[in-house]
């Protein structure tokens, strides 16, 4: 579904991704962990198409097509979804109108007729129930006045509504208390299927107790320095990142020596 090869990217002339390789297949859940500033959120931003990130090398193929050529809205319509680390508040745009517009543009892209008002409301209610997010959305501006937890849960609701094939969760667990974390995880688990895939970016192993990944990757200094199964997350929890940093630096100097 997603194939990232040797991806290099910079932001404000600072090299931030230095050769990422990653393969994600339908039905898989990949966790990306790593210390602060390692490039986790940058990877999410590059994949979603944030404008100030410039890809300098490498390629990303999503469903057989070059993802990097596509405008952010086209990526979304093709089935890529980024749950934002910091969802944006937009006063004056209502939650419902936002959802309706997004859904109808995605459906139009797929040559599906728009949902009528009744079907749309039924779908919204159903999905709200599924992700246990009962905040009143009508006549409320997008994310405005939402608590940190509500914003994150609103992201998961959007995920449920838009039914993407590949969802990237960028530190969705940050700022969530244990109950909210459980609810969000439950929602994600309900949405998992053999047709879609998830990339879960997180600092902590805690989230991975609820959403069990198939693969765990450690990002450090713009590269994936180690990949493994869910046991790797446990090992990181126990030992921290320092041993990997040392390993990475050791490897780096070895490479330099070889040249």
């Amino acid at each position, binding site marked *: 579904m997603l194939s990232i090869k040797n991806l290099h990217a910079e932001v404000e002339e600072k090299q931030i991704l230095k050769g990422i390789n990653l393969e994600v297949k339908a039905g898989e859940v990949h966790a990306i962990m790593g210390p602060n500033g390692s490039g986790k959120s940058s990877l999410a931003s590059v994949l979603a198409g944030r404008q100030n990130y410039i890809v300098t090398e490498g390629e990303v193929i999503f469903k057989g097509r070059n993802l990097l050529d596509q405008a*952010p*809205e086209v990526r979304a*319509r093709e089935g890529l979804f980024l749950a934002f680390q910091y969802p944006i508040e937009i006063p004056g745009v209502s939650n419902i109108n936002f959802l309706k517009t997004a859904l109808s*543009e995605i459906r139009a892209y797929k040559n599906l007729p728009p949902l009528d008002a009744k079907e749309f409301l039924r779908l919204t209610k159903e999905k709200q129930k599924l992700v246990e997010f009962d905040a009143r959305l009508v006549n409320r501006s997008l994310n405005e006045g939402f608590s940190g937890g509500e914003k994150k849960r609103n992201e998961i609701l959007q995920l449920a509504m838009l039914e993407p094939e590949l969802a990237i969760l960028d530190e969705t667990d940050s700022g969530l208390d244990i109950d909210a974390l459980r609810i969000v995880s439950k929602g994600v688990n309900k949405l998992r299927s053999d047709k879609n895939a998830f990339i879960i970016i997180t600092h902590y192993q805690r989230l991975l107790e609820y959403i069990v990944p198939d693969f765990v990757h450690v990002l450090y200094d713009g590269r994936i320095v180690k990949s493994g199964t869910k046991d790797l997350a446990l090992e990181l929890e126990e030992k921290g990142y320092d041993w990997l940093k040392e390993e990475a630096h050791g490897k780096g100097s070895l490479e330099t020596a070889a040249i």
Partner: protein
Amino acid sequence: MVQELAIPLYDEVVNGFNKLLSDQGVTRQESSSVRQARQSAFERFKELGFPTTKNEDWKYTNITRFLKDEFAIAGTDHSAAGHSADGGHDSFTATTAALLEQSAIDALDCYRIVLVNGVWHGKKADEAYPSGVQLFTVAEARLDPAFSGYFERSAEFEKNHFTALNAALYTDGLFIRVGAGASPDKPLHIVHVYTSAHNLLVQPRHVVLVNKNASLSIIESVVSGDGAAGSGASGPGQGAGGAQVGGGAKIFVNSLMEIIVQPDARMDHTIIQTSGKATRLVQHITVRQKRQSLYNNFTFTFPGADLVRNELTLRLEEEHTESHLYGLYLLGGQQLVDNHTLVDHQKPSCHSNELYKGVLLEKSVGVFNGKVYVHKDAQKTNAFQQNNNLVISKKATINSKPQLEIFADDVKCSHGSTVGQFSEDALFYLRARGIGEDTAKGLLINAFAFDITEKIGIPALRAHINHLIEGQIPVTTEDLV
């Protein structure tokens, strides 16, 4: 004044004024004090002339190019008036009908009257009017001893160029009187249609009198043709230097409205300007508020008219008044739109609140000048003012000038002005959910306007305004040539 010699319109208004006050002129039946008021206003206009950018109040609004054409002056003699009302019969009425349709507000339960080139042709058999409200033409009212007092000399209107010109040369308009305690069940929708086969200067004069304990809601729609007159290729704006009339007639409207809101009375006033190109609209409104009165003004300006100058002056003449001024200007093309407001706090304990928001597309130029003046006696004044602008095109310009002059020491006043672009974060968030760039920008423009539109109390009116905003969407962010 030497500079005026270059403006043909100046000579035309002098001729027009002489005709108006001649023995055959339409003012011959007016009382001597009404005629003296005209004379005095005209002397004043001759001193002031047309404004130039050397006048502080017109610094960013250069109207020289709009005064170059020759205009007939409506109402000053029979041929001009006759021509404007009947000229090109069929096309005229067809245009009027189309403009009326354009001004219609879906699902709005209201009374409606129509003025064509500032003239109301009276009540039609099938039209109903609100009880407790009297409607006259100014042509009648200025001759009626009961009302002619409103047309006597006014220092207020001799303060500036265009109001002085109107006070000298007006002949008609609308006079609305709401009786004490009256409270019409529905708003009054006043449609101002401007249309003419030849260049025309129209100077309507309106008076609105809301008596004690009364309330009135009026919605004014200003519509006009785009001057294209079927000749598609030669749009107005081209051949700016020449005196050519080809490409359609230009209409210059210099309108003056005086509103008096008596003690404990309330007036809601909405203005929707969707005039066509080739229209130059200068509109002055002075509101005089008495004790414990409430006045709410909404002014909406949309793409169309080449020039719009809105002057809104609130004189808070007695204590405990409340006023809300909301403005939204969404500009496109090469429009020049200027909103000048003055809130004059003369007495203590008055509350005024002003919010104007602008969205500037293409090569439009906007001007906002909001002045709040708090007199020495006006203690316990609350006066707030805010102007926010969203400049979408690189070639658009906004000149924003908030002014606060306070001579009292126990007041709460604030003002602020911002100019910004789309939030990149918000735009990305919307696009990342599959919403196309144009639609996303449309949503953000609607969101920006929301602070104003949410204040509109009548749902059908709010829907109409939202519809007009959406009519400008998807926005072209490419800079048009």
